[in-house]
């Protein structure tokens, strides 16, 4: 037995365990810091920085300092930054891998702060492609042109149907010409008919009964050959005539194409007062769509964490594990607890207008177990440049398959200064001054989005129109500069993946009235120039085609001559 026992091994084991414990205690802060940064970066899809972590063991608590979360869409900016976060953890539940926090205090939250270094992380080709398609989608939402483009520039960019068809026709004529010329070479020609004539003359000269009979027979055979040749020539001529007729009918249709070209280009580039009926949507739409998109990007990031209690998540059949990680199979807990629950969080924001604070209740990844929704309430009363801001939210995923999220916001007496409404290159618009009230009611029920936002603006000041702007833009700016108060409503309906945004305003009629005359005049001018340019570009080509078709007539003439020779021979 003694041979198998090593008592000093027990001391070594105790030494190793003690060393490991000391190592953990000494480096616990660093380990926690690394874990938070790594997990945060993975969830957000951009770098998460953390200045310092202080992990207290008795009682178990965590203090975070300088947490910065990069905005994945703008890696040189932080989506938000937290100066301090203080929380106490339930140690016994941590052994069960459950993070339960009764109270958490988050101070000094700032949004959109600049970063010294880019917070972008390497992205896969797939996500880069998704990002690209998203950017293209945004580009499509750009403001339409308010300027009448130069017709020559447009025609350089556009492929005219007239030119396309004329080129095709020219190509077909050349091909047919080559085909019939080749046929002409293979068909019986003047020499062949002369040969027939000589043979006949020779046969006619014979004497003697037997010879005459043989000559008559041969002449009959020759006649049959000549008739065969004539038929060949006739068939080719018929084919040629059909082809020429077809090409000519295509040529006749050609003058219709410039009108089609005109209609197409006109509808693409010209301005129409009808098309500009909802100018508010055109002006405010892209900016608002961008806001909605940003909001939904964050919603999509957070939703999977909140929705973890979904019944379908529990089915793990056919799960493909990450190599070396495996799959965790979950069983029923006698006293179920979520993996994460922060019962009460007090948050204070630092915004340029001052301090803004509120509370969030029941932050969890499994509301089904908690049995209560995540709610939030923020308000700011003594802010600079705004009388009242109140934001409420209720994110109810207690029954994950019938989830309902509601967000409400009320802003009163917000003094707007230099707010960029449109950053379009062609029509940049800044709201210089206004006093704004805002009401927002948004509901996301399952996958369906229904939101209504109302802006009521008074004491509005838009900048004076610049001299270098186009006449249409000047008209819009003139009309806007006369606006002193207005209301804008933005409705969003649809699904989380695709929404219809409808923006309406009482300034639509005023704008439409102001620009309709200008637009009409511009449109007429554009039409006239466009027709003239299209006709100019296509006229020469149509004339050239007529000449090419005429080239086929000479082949017809040659066929006719050969037929005449053949017919003369058969007649004689």
């Amino acid at each position, binding site marked *: 037995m003694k*041979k198998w026992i090593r008592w000093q091994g027990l001391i070594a084991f105790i030494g190793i365990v003690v060393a490991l414990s000391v190592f953990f205690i000494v480096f616990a802060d660093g380990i926690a810091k690394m874990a938070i940064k790594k997990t945060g970066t993975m969830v957000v899809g951009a770098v998460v920085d953390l200045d310092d972590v202080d992990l207290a063991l008795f009682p178990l608590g965590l203090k975070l300092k300088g947490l910065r979360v990069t905005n994945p869409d703008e890696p040189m900016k932080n989506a938000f930054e937290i100066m301090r976060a203080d929380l106490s953890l339930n140690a016994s539940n941590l052994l069960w891998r459950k993070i339960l926090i009764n109270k958490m205090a988050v101070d000094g939250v700032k949004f959109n702060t600049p970063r010294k270094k880019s917070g972008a992380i390497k992205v896969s080709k797939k996500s880069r492609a998704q990002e690209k398609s998203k950017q293209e989608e945004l580009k499509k939402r750009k403001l339409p042109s308010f300027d009448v483009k130069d017709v020559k520039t447009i025609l350089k960019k556009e492929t005219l149907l007239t030119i396309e068809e004329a080129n095709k026709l020219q190509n077909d004529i050349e091909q047919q010409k080559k085909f019939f010329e080749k046929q002409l070479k293979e068909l019986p020609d003047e020499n062949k008919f002369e040969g027939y004539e000589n043979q006949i003359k020779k046969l006619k000269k014979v004497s003697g009964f037997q010879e005459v009979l043989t000559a008559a027979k041969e002449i009959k055979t020759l006649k049959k050959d000549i008739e065969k040749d004539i038929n060949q020539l006739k068939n080719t001529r018929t084919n040629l005539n059909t082809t020429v007729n077809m090409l000519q009918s295509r040529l006749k249709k050609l003058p219709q194409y410039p009108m089609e070209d005109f209609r197409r280009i006109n509808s693409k580039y010209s301005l129409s007062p009808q098309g500009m009926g909802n100018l508010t949507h055109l002006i405010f739409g892209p900016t608002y769509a961008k806001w909605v998109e940003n909001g939904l990007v964050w919603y999509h990031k957070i939703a999977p964490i909140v929705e973890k209690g979904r019944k379908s998540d529990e089915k793990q059949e056919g799960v493909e594990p990450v190599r*070396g990680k*495996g*799959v965790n*199979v979950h069983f029923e807990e006698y006293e179920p607890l979520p993996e994460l629950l922060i019962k009460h969080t007090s948050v204070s924001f630092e915004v340029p207008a001052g301090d803004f604070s509120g509370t969030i209740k029941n932050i969890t990844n499994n509301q089904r177990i908690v049995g209560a929704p995540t709610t939030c309430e923020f308000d700011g009363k003594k802010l600079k440049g705004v009388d009242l801001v109140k934001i409420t939210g209720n994110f109810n995923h207690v029954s994950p398959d019938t989830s309902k999220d509601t967000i409400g916001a009320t802003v009163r007496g917000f003094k707007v200064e230099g707010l960029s409404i449109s950053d379009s290159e062609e029509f940049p618009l800044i709201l210089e001054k206004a006093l704004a009230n805002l009401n927002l009611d948004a509901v996301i029920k399952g996958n369906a989005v229904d939101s209504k936002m109302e802006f009521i603006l008074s004491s509005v000041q838009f900048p004076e129109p610049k001299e270098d702007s186009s006449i249409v833009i000047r008209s819009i700016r003139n009309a806007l500069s006369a606006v002193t108060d207005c209301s804008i409503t933005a409705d969003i309906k649809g699904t989380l993946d695709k929404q219809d945004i409808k923006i309406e305003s009482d300034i639509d009629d005023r704008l439409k009235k102001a620009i309709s005359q200008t637009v009409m005049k511009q449109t007429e001018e554009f039409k006239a120039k466009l027709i003239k340019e299209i006709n100019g570009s296509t006229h020469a080509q149509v004339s050239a085609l007529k000449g090419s078709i005429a080239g086929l007539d000479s082949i017809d003439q040659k066929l006719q001559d050969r037929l005449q020779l053949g017919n003369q021979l058969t007649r004689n």
Partner: protein
Amino acid sequence: MINIVAKLISILNSETEPGQISLAFCLSMVIGFTPVFCPHNLLVLLLVLFLRANLSAFLFGWAVFSAIAYLLDPLFHAIGYKALTAQPLHGLWTSCYNMTLWRLENFNNSIVMGSLIVSLTLFIPLYFIFNVLIKKYRGQLLEWVRKTKVMGMLKASKLYIAYKALAG
């Protein structure tokens, strides 16, 4: 690599009890196959140190079995997943799931469970197999190996010098 092979030869040729070497190999299989940060590996470590298992054999085995574990990973997952989702064992797993010790062990992970099942199943048979192999090596192969031309060449090589240095 030469050092590792030399170390293995050194262990096999030493006077150490075959049982101590076999035990070290079997324990190293458990720690090598299963994820290293599982609490049961503390017990393995305790057994290695307390039961006079050959430490060199243990460290050598740990390296070898860890490499094999990487290749067997899909097999561990499949076995572990099958065991964890087996209906007759559901009650047992549910009870374990509600016990702190087992939660710490992360037993409900398919790879932890699979690798543990494989290593514990193979533990006793492998112990005897290693024992027999070591005895056979020492009884029959060792003398024959010493007499071969290859061994003669090896004696003059870096490998033998390394072995000699280790053997003292």
